[in-house]
């Protein structure tokens, strides 16, 4: 398995010390960066926004089990992809885990190819999602720099309204509208209304306004 170094860490969570050690060893041997935790709680305590990679977790553990970890992770600011391992999985649990977006569900006796493949996919997905999240954050940051009035004008612009209409709607001077637009495009670093619209869409802005 050849993984780019920036693909992140595999966070292995298992209460069985022996298995935790062996699977971590295997993953390291395969070239992964690995961090081992002996319980879901220990991992969630450490979880921070800067952590990238994926989680390989044992389904059955005392305390919080794998499904609970998955749930907590999904709610967090850093929803890393999850691969489940289980000594013995049953169908309902598997279905539940997969529905909640688990990358894969493997038994502890699955061959290493299957395991490494699943981990590889989870890391790739994690990196992709992280990249996406970063871009979204950056975008939102850009929009966050706008004043309330500029946001109002922006909303009208992306709905295709003319300066005259915007001025009328907001009860301001048409020249003031033009000024706001200039400031907008400058701060958002866009060249055209089309690009502006695409950015707004990507950032998920004004969704409610559109539905009106």
């Amino acid at each position, binding site marked *: 398995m050849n993984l780019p170094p920036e693909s992140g860490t595999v966070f292995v969570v298992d209460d069985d010390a022996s*298995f935790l050690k*062996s699977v971590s060893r*295997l993953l*390291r041997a395969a070239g992964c960066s690995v961090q081992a935790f002996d319980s879901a709680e220990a991992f969630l305590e450490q979880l921070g926004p800067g952590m990238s990679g994926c989680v390989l977790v044992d389904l*059955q553990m005392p305390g919080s089990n794998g499904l609970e970890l998955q749930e907590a992770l999904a709610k967090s600011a850093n929803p890393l992809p999850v691969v489940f391992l289980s*000594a013995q999985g049953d169908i309902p649990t598997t279905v539940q885990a997969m529905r909640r977006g688990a990358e894969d569900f493997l*038994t*502890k006796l699955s061959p*290493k190819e299957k395991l490494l493949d699943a981990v590889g996919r989870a890391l790739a997905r994690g990196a992709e999602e992280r990249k996406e999240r970063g871009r979204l954050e950056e975008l939102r940051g850009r929009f966050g720099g706008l004043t309330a009035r500029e946001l109002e004008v922006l909303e009208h612009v992306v709905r295709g309204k003319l300066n005259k209409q915007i001025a009328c709607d907001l009860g301001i001077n048409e020249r003031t509208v033009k000024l706001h637009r200039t400031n907008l495009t400058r701060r958002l670093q866009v060249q055209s209304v089309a690009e502006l619209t695409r950015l707004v869409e990507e950032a998920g802005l004004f969704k409610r306004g559109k539905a009106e």
Partner: protein
Amino acid sequence: MIFNESKDVPGNIMLEQAVRAEMQKAVTNRIEFLAEYLDASHFSDKEHFRLFQDYLGKKYAGQKLDLILAFPSRDYRLAGELPDALFPDVPVVFVAINEMEVPEAISKLGVTGIVQRFDIRGTLGLIMRLQPDTRRVVVIGGISGMDRATLGRIAEASQALEGVEFDFWTNRPVAELPGAVKVLPEGTVVLLSTVISDVNGQTFYMSQLAQTLAPAASVPVYVLGGWVLGSGVVGGSVVNSEDLGARAAQLALRVLGGADPEKVPIEVATKGTPTVDWRALQRWGIKESRVPAGGVIRYRPETLWEQHRDLILILLAVFLGQAVTIGGLLAQRQQRRRAEAEILNQRTELAHATRVSTMGQLASALAHELNQPLGAILRNAEAAEIFLQKEKPNLEEIRTILEDIRKDDQRAGSVIDRMRSLLKKHSLESKPLDLGGLLAETVTLAQADAHARRVNLTLQMPAQLPAVRGDRVHLQQVVLNLILNGVDAMAGGTEAGRLLTVRAETARDGSVEVAVSDCGTGIPPDKAKRLFEPFFTTKPDGMGMGLAISQTIIEAHGGKIWAENNAARGAVFKFTLPANDN
């Protein structure tokens, strides 16, 4: 109520009942009716009348009577002379059956009444209607003036009937008539008129004539008076006794109410109703359907329905009740069958479930416990492989890995040991056990499953088996497991050959030997040795734990379990349990 004739004249009975009913209907307080019968047709001499009158006089002396209802026939002394002499202050109402016979003087006696006029046309019409082939009507009448008047009316009415010959027999003594009517030819009918006096001067009542002639006649006999009906005559268009009685009652009520009888005119009842005797219709083969609409058929035996209406209704109710009950029971039975099928189904499932549960629970726990160290061993081995692929393998690392693998292997072994000791020490009960009962119960439990898969499952054992000790639930699991294995083993064979026998017997050393013998494909020699190993299975979806656990259980009981092939076909699994010597 004073009647001219006897109590037995059918018309009189109806008349009397009708009068009573009608009067009682109109008055709220009870009316007491007293009836006397002169019986003039049997006792016609003057002496008899005198005795009758004396008798009534003595009988009712001092009695308060409100009204005399006289039913005179011919002799109007009943309506006049007699009440006049005995009960001068009591008003009299009479009911007369032949208008012709009412003496003119009667109205002068200060009495009123109702008389009926014979509906001669109607009667002739009825004759032609019932017997259209009639060619000749023999009219029997008397020679008195009143007789002649009636006969005159008949003759007059006969003019309307073309092609029918009327033969008036008036000059024959009545005594001769029974012989004469016996030989009348077909196509003839007899019509009875009145015989107040025959050629010999004898008097006959119409009821007498009817009773004498009708049964003897070779042809149907018709009459003019309704009260004669029932004596064998066919009938006639007659004034309805009920109607006549009702009208007489109305009249009586008026008089009782204070009306002066002298001023109440005598009523004439003329409306004839075609009335026939059903029995006579039968005798002469006249169809009931010929009776005109509105006609009355008397003496028809009630239909079963009419006769036994209540009984039939009760029976129907009973049948209905029974039907409902039977229906209910059937529904109940069906419900029960469904429930039984459900139970059978559940039992089948239970058989599976129990096997899966105890065995499955054990197997599942075992698998989980084993998979942890086995997984670790696998991962370590895989890691070692990767390390070894490197140009300069880190041997120290590999040594650590091998160390870990060994530890996990020991751990896996200890899991199995723990499981066995768990079975041996803690979860096994040792109680006196009825092995025969246990086998029977288990076979019953498995029977549904066996039956569903068309396996003939039988149990063979002696009446007495040595007592054993053990854990009932676990031993049942073993037997059930062996049976279901046997059933599985025969899944591919022909239906006829699917025999599974559970046999129990006392072995030579006093222990009990149980054998479960199937007719399947038998055990392949290369697999015989591994049968009882954990995770060894020959079934595609098998867990490979059943026989391993069975062995653990049997050995924990101090017994042995083994398998061999039958001489003919299939395999036999046997286990022994030591006898309980205590």
